[in-house]
């Protein structure tokens, strides 16, 4: 862990240094957001290296994403019903795409490019537009044995 602080030029005494703490938090958030949902063991390993108060936040964050199964099950909007509107994530018109893949969120009916919303939902569980929870009942279903720890360490270590 000491090398982490050295590399990022932050102090390990995070409680006495709110700025350092914020830096670490955003570093980890960035790191987390680079991770795919198939990396839960790596996530929990990283989390265990954090100070307790961040561990809680980190844990909360890691549970926030939706499962790939849920994302795959999002209802597609039929081509003839795709609105002449912008995707609010990439700001591109849905219809300008030659092969549009548009989905509609079940709770709020907000529409997005599948590609755009999948990345967002892999680490968040709210609609970007209205902030409603997209899946109240679905639970994150991850089999930790699937995580290919050694390969992943190569990426981030």
């Amino acid at each position, binding site marked *: 862990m000491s090398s982490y602080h050295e590399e990022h030029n932050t102090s390990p005494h995070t409680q006495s240094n709110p700025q350092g703490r914020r830096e670490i938090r955003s570093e980890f958030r*960035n790191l987390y957001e680079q991770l795919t949902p198939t990396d839960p063991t790596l996530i929990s390993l990283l989390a265990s290296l954090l100070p307790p108060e961040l561990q809680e936040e980190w844990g909360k964050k890691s549970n926030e994403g939706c499962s790939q199964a849920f994302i795959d099950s999002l209802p597609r909007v039929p081509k003839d019903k795709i609105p002449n509107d912008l995707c609010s994530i990439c700001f591109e018109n849905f219809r300008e795409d030659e092969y549009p893949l548009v989905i509609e969120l079940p709770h709020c009916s907000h529409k997005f490019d599948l590609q755009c919303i999948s*990345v967002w939902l892999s680490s968040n569980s709210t609609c970007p537009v209205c902030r409603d929870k997209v899946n109240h009942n679905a639970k994150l279903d991850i089999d930790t044995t699937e995580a290919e720890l050694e390969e992943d360490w190569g990426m981030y270590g």
Partner: protein
Amino acid sequence: MESRILKEYKDSRSLQSQYILALDPISTDDLTHWECTIKGPLHSPFANHTFKLRIDIPQTYPLTTPICKFEPFAMPHPNVNFETGEICLDILDTNWSPVFNIQYIVEAIVWLLNEPNFKSPLNLDLANLLRFDDLKAYHDLISYHLNNSAK
């Protein structure tokens, strides 16, 4: 998401706003670093002053939040670090959503100048003045710092 930032750049060319005086990439070759000049809101201690913001767009934008700070000004505000210019604002942190764009962030920062929040302070002394409900001292102290730095 390069096309998204390119779109924002195009939109920013025709931007008209009461409080955003300038919003430009530092170099048009690289749209990930922006500079912005805002005007202090009327009826706030920041009125009649302009402020510079630096905005850095991460690779993962708009899925992750841009990094914004006041620069190079020593900014006296309860939610801004006086030395570093770092800003504490919920939409730049946990409440970020990819539907927000650079202009929206800047407008939120202008709004923050008028609506400080003493519950998440980065400048403890100014936040305490709000907490003690000492608005006279709050106004005068900000005015002191602004005029003293301007010299």
